């Protein structure tokens, strides 16, 4: 016999009218936001890896029997890194293939630059940048295949094999050169080492994805619960009419999955449409090529299916009560209490973390793992805390709105927790990332330019020449071989202390180039590149995590608030009819969110700060005060955005209570 589930589900969905359609629309919107965010996170992860791979060709892979010499150098202009790849075809060897982004191997004297570097060359005076490069011929352009980002600054220069820029002295020498300077004989460009500026990108994104997945899953799960009350009533009636629990679950699953799939598909379409805009969001070395952010159809299909499945499972889990006790749900007799085991587990995790961190220096990685453990434990603890908060506030509430809000909290603590969990956990993440790891201690290299030389004698000789070159260029500087700031990193060379701003520094780097015998002069940014790459990514990760968390939390709060209005429209209508002012109902709704938000978001943000302090202690770094300010601003803005999202359903509340006579129907 043919199953009645599908036709009955379709019939009920059609018959649910405007009210049912509104709930389904909200659920679909939540699914759309969920799939859009998940696809964006996935795109960032895969894209970060793809574009890091595009930098690998620049680091030479040694081949004793190679056909060309490749030298990697890194110079800076306005504190932005410029990757310089020097190539020299060896005589009497087979032709070397073209590097990525070029049509042929560059001949001696040819040079190519990325479009962004071309723009910078036009922007800055030649004495500050262009004079570092060959002047003989006009340059060509490096194609996208050789670049990781449209903003990347890259130059490829064809040299003679005898050119100092590809000589052995151009190879790695000092402690700062790792990943920035290298030289080798090569036979091609199948390098495997990602550049210093991209190597940590994917790992940082993965960490962010790990932290953001929970709020996104919560949003999708909330979508499954949208309209739950109406659906519970409807299906409880079906159950009373004789439908089997299996049929009830199947009908719910089919309806929720269909709505979820439609929403997730809309989110996927939005992701596709937003790709050009997403590609303009800078991360690490800059903006993206659109193709780098396209995850491919299999991933799109997987995310859509995953979101739809999540929503279906969430919707079905809310109906377990209907299946087991239809009368209980129909009469709403079961307060959704939380158990003490949640507190016990949370305390156990806290004790474990305390014992693990006490009296020993832990690696930051271990502490991050502990942080994730805490994150999970708080997820268990949150509803219990909301329940207790509701009871305490309910006991002392003086105003009707506060009493209503408190009773709602303890009536459905899990629901209240879901509404605020996004921002609460975002506060934790934000507290950790915006404050932690940002204040990395470093030596002060401000205003200094280092020129590495082959040996100490050359360094002494270069001092006078450096003074002459700087003087001729109008740069006010003191020059010596004394390296108090350890900018030379243990190699011989000259250090110039330059007065003036970035322009003077860039001019000094440019005019001192001839003294380096193949090595490019550099300033503090070169020496700090490794640390800066890590701290910059973490700072960006903190900001991005905050932004996405707030987006998800705001969507979650707004959708849940709207769904609650629709689910409780009859109660609201009857209260209005009895003369309860709209503002009391509205205040109760807002306080329902604000109460746990104030307590929990404040608590988790403080805990995130504490975790950040612990990480900084372990890593020997300092707390970033600017990060703390950023955190405060962001959490405040996030809270305001959530309140605005809840406020956005005020017209809906007004509309559903506008005709109180209908509430009695």
């Amino acid at each position, binding site marked *: 016999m043919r199953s009645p589930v599908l036709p009955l589900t379709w019939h009920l969905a059609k018959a649910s009218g405007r009210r049912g359609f509104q709930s389904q629309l909200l659920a679909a919107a939540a699914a759309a936001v969920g799939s859009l965010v998940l696809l964006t996170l996935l795109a960032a992860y895969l894209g970060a890896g793809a574009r890091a791979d595009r930098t690998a060709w620049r680091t030479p892979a040694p081949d004793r029997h190679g056909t060309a010499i490749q030298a990697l150098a890194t110079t800076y202009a306005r504190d932005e890194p410029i990757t310089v790849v020097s190539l020299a075809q060896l005589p009497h060897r087979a032709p070397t293939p073209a590097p990525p982004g070029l049509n042929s191997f560059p001949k001696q004297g040819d040079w190519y630059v990325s479009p962004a570097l071309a723009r910078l060359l036009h922007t800055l005076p030649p004495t500050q940048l262009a004079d570092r490069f060959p002047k003989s011929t006009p340059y060509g352009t490096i194609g996208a295949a050789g670049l990781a980002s449209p903003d990347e600054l890259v130059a490829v220069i064809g040299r003679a094999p005898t050119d100092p820029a590809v000589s052995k002295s151009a190879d790695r020498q000092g402690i700062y050169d790792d990943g920035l300077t290298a030289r080798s004989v090569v036979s091609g460009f199948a390098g495997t080492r990602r550049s210093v500026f991209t190597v940590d990108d994917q790992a940082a994104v993965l960490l962010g994805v790990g932290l953001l997945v929970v709020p996104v899953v919560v949003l999708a799960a909330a979508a499954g619960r949208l309209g739950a009350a109406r659906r519970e009533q409807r299906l409880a009636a079906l159950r009373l009419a004789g439908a089997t629990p299996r049929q009830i679950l199947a009908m719910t699953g089919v309806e929720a999955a269909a709505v979820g799939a439609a929403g997730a598909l809309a989110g996927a379409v939005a992701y596709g449409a937003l790709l050009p805009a997403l590609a303009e969001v800078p991360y690490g070395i800059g903006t993206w090529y659109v193709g780098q952010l396209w995850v491919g159809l299999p991933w799109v299909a997987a995310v859509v299916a995953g979101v739809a499945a999540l929503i279906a499972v969430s919707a079905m889990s809310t109906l377990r009560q209907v299946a087991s006790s239809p009368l*209980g749900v129909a*009469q*709403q*007799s*079961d*307060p959704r209490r939380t158990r003490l085991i949640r507190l016990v587990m949370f305390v156990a995790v806290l004790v474990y973390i305390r014992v693990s961190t006490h009296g020993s220096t832990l690696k930051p990685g271990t502490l991050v793992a502990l942080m994730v453990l805490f994150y999970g434990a708080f997820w268990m603890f949150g509803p219990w805390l909301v329940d207790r908060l509701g009871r305490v506030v309910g006991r002392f*509430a*003086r*105003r*009707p709105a506060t*009493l*209503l809000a408190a*009773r*709602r909290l*303890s*009536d*459905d603590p899990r629901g209240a927790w879901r509404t605020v969990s996004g921002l609460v956990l975002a506060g934790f993440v934000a507290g950790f990332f915006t404050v932690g790891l940002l204040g990395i201690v470093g030596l002060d290299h401000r205003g200094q330019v280092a020129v590495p030389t082959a040996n100490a004698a050359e360094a002494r000789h270069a001092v006078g020449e450096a003074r002459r070159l700087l003087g001729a260029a109008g740069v006010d500087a003191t020059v010596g071989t004394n390296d108090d700031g350890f900018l030379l990193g243990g190699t011989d060379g000259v250090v110039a202390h330059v007065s003036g701003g970035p322009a003077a520094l860039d001019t000094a780097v440019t005019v001192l180039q001839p003294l380096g015998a193949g090595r490019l002069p550099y300033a503090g940014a070169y020496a700090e590149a490794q640390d800066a790459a890590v701290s910059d990514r973490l700072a960006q990760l903190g900001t991005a995590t905050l932004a996405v968390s707030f987006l998800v939390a705001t969507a979650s709060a707004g959708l849940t608030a709207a769904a609650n209005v629709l689910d409780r429209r*009859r*109660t609201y209508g*009857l*209260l*209005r*009819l*009895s*003369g*309860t*002012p709209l503002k*009391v109902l509205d205040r109760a709704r807002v306080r329902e969110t604000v109460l746990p938000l104030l307590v929990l978001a404040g608590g988790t943000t403080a805990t995130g700060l504490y975790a950040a302090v612990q990480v900084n202690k372990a890593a020997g770094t300092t707390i970033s005060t600017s990060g703390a300010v950023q955190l405060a601003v962001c959490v405040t803005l996030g809270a305001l955005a959530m309140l605005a999202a809840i406020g956005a359903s005020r017209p809906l509340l007004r509309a559903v209570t506008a005709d*109180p*006579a209908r509430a*009695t129907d």
Partner: protein
Amino acid sequence: MSAVLAGVGLVKKYGSTTALAGVDVEVGARDSVAIMGPSGSGKSTLLHTLAGIIRPDGGQVLLRGDRIDDLGENRLSALRRKRFGFVFQSGQLLPELPAEENVALPLMLEGLPRAQAVERARRWFAPLGLDGLELRRPGQLSGGQAQRVAIARALAVAPDVVFADEPTGALDQATGTEVVRLLTSVTREQGAALVMVTHDAEVAAHCDRVLRVRDGRISNYSQFTVS
């Protein structure tokens, strides 16, 4: 002698359908009036119009001689809160509040401190046979108990008029009879008037008078005299 509540020449139309076609009605203190009629006759429209929930297209509604149908929404809302009580078929109790807080809520909305509001609310439980159920939530009460809590809530603000819309519609016969007996007697004891819509003749029989509505008109209107 004057009516507590009066509707004079009430007219209400929904598009081309006339729900009330010039209804006159008066209700006195301690008076209980049942409004009966077939579906679509206009009985619920009459109750909602008298209660200031919907505005008539014609005629006037007077509460102790003062016209109320032309008041602004905020004042009407305040009037419903302070001077009227409502009992519906079901669903008027907030499921998350215990019974005593459901009863105390209108008093708190009027600005009474919570402790006093709850104390006053509790006074209603024994007379209505709800002793010991103060902390139960609506879902933990039987249908009859929940309706008695709703009656307590309607009367807690000492209203001039209690409006009841099918108050026994969701109850069995015996429970319904018990609830309506309590509703009429307690309302009378409190000096309030009762206007009740019902389709059940046995329920209507508990009221002092029965108004039968048909096609938007009262078919058996009888002049009321204050006792």
